[in-house]
C-alpha cells in the first residue's frame, strides 16, 4: 500500500452509466486483482475500485454511476489531482492456470482486463465470458477480444448468448483448468457451486480499505477474512455465501 497523488488524464463515458478514468502518477508494481481507494472531493470515505489496467506511470479504472460519489466522479475534469491509496488487496494468482477461463459480470469485468493482459504477457490467451444485462450495459467487448477468445452473454439476449454468464459457461462448456471471476455476488456464488477450482474477486462496502476497521469481513472455511486485506480475491471453495 502506498499513498499517491494521481492526475486525471481521461474521464469518458463508455455507455449510459459506465465510465473510464485514466490517472497519471507513480503507479508501478500493481498486480491484477488489486484495487485502489480514491478520494472523491466532497466525500468523506475513499472509494474502492478494481484496477482495470496499469503501467509504471498510469492506471485505468472503469466505474459505474450508481450513487452520489460516482455521480460526482463523472463531473471530474482532466488535470484534477486526486489522492489515492494504491496496491491494496492480494491480487489474482496467475500461476494457478495454464488454460484459464475468465468470467466477468457487468462492472465486475474491470479487474479482469488487467488479468487477461498479464496472461497475454505470459503467452496465454484466456477463454473469456462477459455477461451483461443488455446491449445498453455492454462495454469493453472489443478490448477484451484483443486478449482472448470472447463469448458474450446478455440477460435479454440482445448480444450473444441469451442468459447469464454462468448459464453461458454451462452451455458452451469451455475447456479450462482454472477460472477467474468477478461480478455480482449471485454469479460468483453460482460459479463456486458448480466448480470450486477457481478464484473469485469480491466486492464490499468498505470503511478503510486497508484492514483496520473490519468493515468488510466475510466468513470463510478458514475463519473470518477481510475482503480488503486477505482478499479481494478468494479461492472459490473457501467463501461461505450467506443468503
Amino acid at each position: 500500500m502506498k499513498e499517491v497523488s494521481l492526475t486525471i488524464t481521461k474521464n469518458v463515458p463508455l455507455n449510459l452509466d459506465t465510465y473510464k478514468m485514466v490517472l497519471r502518477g507513480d503507479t508501478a508494481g500493481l498486480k491484477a486483482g488489486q484495487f485502489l481507494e480514491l478520494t472523491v472531493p466532497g466525500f468523506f470515505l475513499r472509494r474502492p475500485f478494481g484496477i482495470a489496467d496499469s503501467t509504471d506511470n498510469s492506471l485505468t479504472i472503469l466505474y459505474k454511476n450508481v450513487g452520489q460519489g460516482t455521480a460526482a466522479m463523472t463531473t471530474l475534469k482532466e488535470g484534477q489531482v486526486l489522492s489515492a491509496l494504491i496496491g491494496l488487496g492480494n491480487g489474482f494468482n496467475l500461476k494457478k492456470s495454464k488454460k484459464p477461463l475468465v468470467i466477468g459480470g457487468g462492472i465486475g469485468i474491470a479487474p479482469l482486463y488487467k488479468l487477461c493482459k498479464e496472461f497475454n504477457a505470459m503467452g496465454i490467451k484466456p477463454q473469456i465470458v462477459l455477461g451483461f444485462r443488455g446491449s445498453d450495459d455492454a462495454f469493453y467487448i472489443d478490448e477484451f477480444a484483443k486478449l482472448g477468445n470472447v463469448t458474450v452473454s446478455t440477460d435479454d439476449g440482445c448480444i450473444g448468448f441469451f442468459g447469464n454468464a454462468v448459464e453461458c459457461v454451462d452451455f458452451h462448456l469451455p475447456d479450462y483448468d482454472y477460472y477467474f471471476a468477478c461480478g455480482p455476488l449471485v454469479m460468483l456464488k453460482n460459479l463456486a457451486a458448480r466448480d470450486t477450482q477457481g478464484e473469485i474477486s469480491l466486492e464490499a462496502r468498505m470503511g478503510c480499505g486497508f484492514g483496520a476497521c473490519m468493515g468488510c469481513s466475510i466468513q470463510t472455511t478458514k475463519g473470518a477474512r477481510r475482503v480488503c486485506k486477505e482478499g479481494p480475491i478468494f479461492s472459490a471453495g473457501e467463501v461461505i455465501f450467506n443468503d
Partner: protein
Amino acid sequence: MIDTKVVLFGHTLDNPIIPASGTFGFGYEFSEYYDINILGSIALKATTLEPRFGNPLPRIAECPAGMINAIGLQNPGVDAVINKELPRLSRSYSKAVIANIGGSTTEDYIKTAEKFNSADSVFAVELNISCPNVKEGGMAFGTNEKTAYNLIKAVKSVSKKPILVKLSPNVTDIVSMALAAQDAGADGISLINTLVGMRIDLKTAKPIISVKTGGYSGPGVFPVALRMVYQVAKAVTLPIIGMGGVMSAQDVIEMMYAGASAVMVGTANLIDPFASKRIIEKLPAAMQELKINKLSNIIGRSLNE
C-alpha cells in the same frame, strides 16, 4: 523546547495521541506503513471473552462528515489477543498499550479483565460499556447509572490495572454517568464512543447497515464530543481521554483545553492510514503558534473561562 509529554495513571506518554479502539486493529498492521513507536500509546481493538465474528455486511455507511459503522465487536477472543496479538504487536511497538474489553454479561467483563492482569505490556484497561452495535451488553451497561456502577465496581475488584471507562454519548446526562463511574472506583474516563445513527438506501428504502443502525463517528461529532469532555471535566476529578472526530493537531489542543489529559484519534485513521502520525508531527508547530511550551499545562484551560 516544546514538551508534548503527558502523564496517565503515573505512566508518561511521549505525546497525548492514542489511536482509538476499533480503528487501529491490534496495531501491528500499521507498522507496515510507518514506525508506530511515535504513538503515545495504542488502544487495542475491543476484546471479548470468546471470539466474535460480529455483524453481517454491510457494516459501513458513509455520512457527509463521517461514517456509520456496525462491526459488532469482531475479535479473536481474549486468549488469542494475549497469546498472539500482543506478542505480535510487541515486535513493532515497544511502549505500553491500553486493552479494551467488551462483553454481554458482567461475568464476561470480569473474566476478560482478569486475564489482562498478566499482560505486562498493558498499562490500562478501557471498559467498553458504550458499544452501540451488539444486541446484549455493550451500551446497555453504559446508559444506566446503576448498571454501570455495579459493573465497574465488579471489574475493579478483580483488575490489577487502572480502569478507564469509555462512556456512550447516547444518554440524557453524561455527567451523571461519569459521576457513577467515579463513585464505582474508575481510574479514568474516556469519551465519547459513537452516536447511534442510520442511513437509508434511496433506491430500496432499506437501511444500509445490516443491523439497521450503527455508530456515527468522524469530524461531524467533534463539537458534541468536545462539549461532553468539557462537562465531564468540570464534574469529576479523574483524568479524561477525549475523543470524537479529532482530525488535526488543533483538534487535539481544543480537546485538552476542554479537560482531556490525552486524546484518541479514531475515524481519521480509516480515511488516512497516516493520520495519527501526521497529527503527532504537526503538534509541535501547532503548539508553537499558540505559544504553548508544555502541553500538559493546557489540560482544562477552558474550564474556568
